């Protein structure tokens, strides 16, 4: 049972990290990155080859290159790869096209990437994927269960770090400019904003965060294959952002919790019905219907974006409650 809780906790934390990265792109800047899961995969594969060691050392699986680097270098390199890939994908798809067309191109990028990796066995072991990926913190010599909880704790710390980064970005003048790009591109340009640069910036930061979530995931489960990052996975994360409330970090975390919960608990509750494929199919159908229902009934999510009010230095020195009371009194 404890074992199950560690898995649950990990998936929820990883889901929250990934959803925050997507929220920066979609919720804040309005970039519809339908290739988002590709960045998760990029991080996972990067960490895999950076921990597996030289390909010749692994007799059963093929991959193009490998190293044996200690924690946390693979995670950091993964983030860099995610950022660079984000800029590259952004450069191709974010140019001179209307938003929905940009989104469509990204979807195509995602489909093709899955296809390429599956077809090319020598690159990352094709459809079978990579397995036996070494786990970090081996030198601590913890018991199996303690090790898992330790991993959860490390991930929780990373989650807090990502939260702080996201909070600083979204709460800053930069975040305001990103939301301006989301709200009205033409007006942002007319005020001197380099819109392309802003979008590429979110592609890079979001890509790095996505890659980090993939890097953590791959080391926890020890395997990674194309079936785990097909394009619907991106929509699982979109569902989390939409349901929770785009532009609201707490809401997005809640959404990720609910969506991951559905996936994990769903498999627990449903298996009596039929074949394992049916369970997966029903989950995706639920996800699709849920997205549509939320878009109709609660397009801003459970916890909508907060209205940002401004106080200058003098007034913030008052206790926060007092400021609120004043504001309420003014109506």
């Amino acid at each position, binding site marked *: 049972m404890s074992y199950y809780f560690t898995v649950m906790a990990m998936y929820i934390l990883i889901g929250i990290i990934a959803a925050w990265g997507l929220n920066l792109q979609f919720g804040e800047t309005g970039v519809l990155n339908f290739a988002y899961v590709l960045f998760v995969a990029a991080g996972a594969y990067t960490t895999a080859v950076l921990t597996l060691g030289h390909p010749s050392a692994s007799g059963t699986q093929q991959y193009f290159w490998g190293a044996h680097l200690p924690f946390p270098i693979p995670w950091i390199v993964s983030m860099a790869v995610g950022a660079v890939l984000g800029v590259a994908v952004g450069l191709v798809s974010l140019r001179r096209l209307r938003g929905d067309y940009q989104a469509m191109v990204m979807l195509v990028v995602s489909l093709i990437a899955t296809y390429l990796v599956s077809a090319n066995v020598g690159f990352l072991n094709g459809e079978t994927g990579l397995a036996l990926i070494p786990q970090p913190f081996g030198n601590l010599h913890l018991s199996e269960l303690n090790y898992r909880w330790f991993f959860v704790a490390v991930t929780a710390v990373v989650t807090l770090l990502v939260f702080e980064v996201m909070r600083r970005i979204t709460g800053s003048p930069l975040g305001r400019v990103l939301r*301006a790009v989301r709200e009205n591109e033409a007006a942002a340009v007319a005020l001197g904003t380099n819109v392309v640069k802003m979008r590429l910036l979110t592609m890079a930061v979001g890509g790095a965060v996505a890659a980090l979530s993939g890097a953590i995931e791959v080391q926890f489960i020890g395997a990674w294959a194309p079936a785990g990052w097909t394009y619907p996975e991106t929509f699982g994360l979109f569902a989390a952002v939409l349901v929770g409330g785009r532009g609201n970090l707490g809401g997005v975390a809640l959404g990720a919790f609910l969506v991951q919960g559905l996936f994990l608990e769903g498999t627990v509750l449903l298996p009596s019905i039929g074949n394992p494929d049916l369970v997966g199919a029903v989950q995706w159908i639920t996800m699709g219907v849920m997205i549509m229902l939320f878009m109709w009934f609660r397009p801003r999510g459970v916890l909508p*974006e907060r*209205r*940002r*009010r*401004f106080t200058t230095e003098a007034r913030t020195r008052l206790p926060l409650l007092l400021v609120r009371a004043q504001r309420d009194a003014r109506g």
Partner: protein
Amino acid sequence: MTEIDRPTAGAPSRTAPLLAVDDVSVAFGGVRAVDHLSFDVAPGSIVGLIGPNGAGKSTALKVIGGEVKPTSGRVRFDGADLVGAAPYEAARRGLVRTFQLGGEFARLTVMENLLVAVPGQKGETLLGALAGRRWWRASQDAEVRKARDILGGLQLRDKEDAYAGDLSGGQRKLVEIARALMARPKMLLLDEPMAGVNRSLARRIEETLARLRSDGIALLLVEHELGSVERLCERVVVMANGSKIAEGDMTEVRSRDDVLSAYLGRRK
């Protein structure tokens, strides 16, 4: 109408023009929306760009603002070529445009709308943002105070925390003008700032524009409301079918037959 200081029209100023539109043409698949248009705007002056619907005024404005690239011709602002530059360069050089419709950031508050416009803020870069509140707080506070001053001048102080999308059409136009001012402009391009605005707000907008001029900001005003144009502008450029057909002060332009037949005669 309160007395607005309308400068007498004279010979165009001898100082170098702030904005120089030079032989600009725009063709959309065979149709010439703008045809060999040339005119100048001197620093600190107000020029009206008028003409019947479909005359090419809005396209001309988009070319000047950098949104549309002309088929031929040049636009120079403050000594720099704008045609070859990225669209956002115009604003960075001090040339800011407003929109006829839908120029606001709807789900940003009025205050946020204004703050977005501040050029080169601390905390607007990734590193600046990651440095945290302490790094940019003081400079933002200064901008917030400035924004409150501007909003106060436009009697919008109480709307500071409202979402721009929730305001009335006229209030949105005022917010846009306020926002443009936060961008520290040398010149504003105004696309029909009085269109669809009730009279008292229109008057407020007009007074604001007159005040801007006295602050030394040049204005290029595309407007249908000729009364306002006459009160505000020292010079007007009249366009019809994509070309400039007349230029001069309003009374002078009004008296010309070709202008009357192309434009004024057909209205009311």
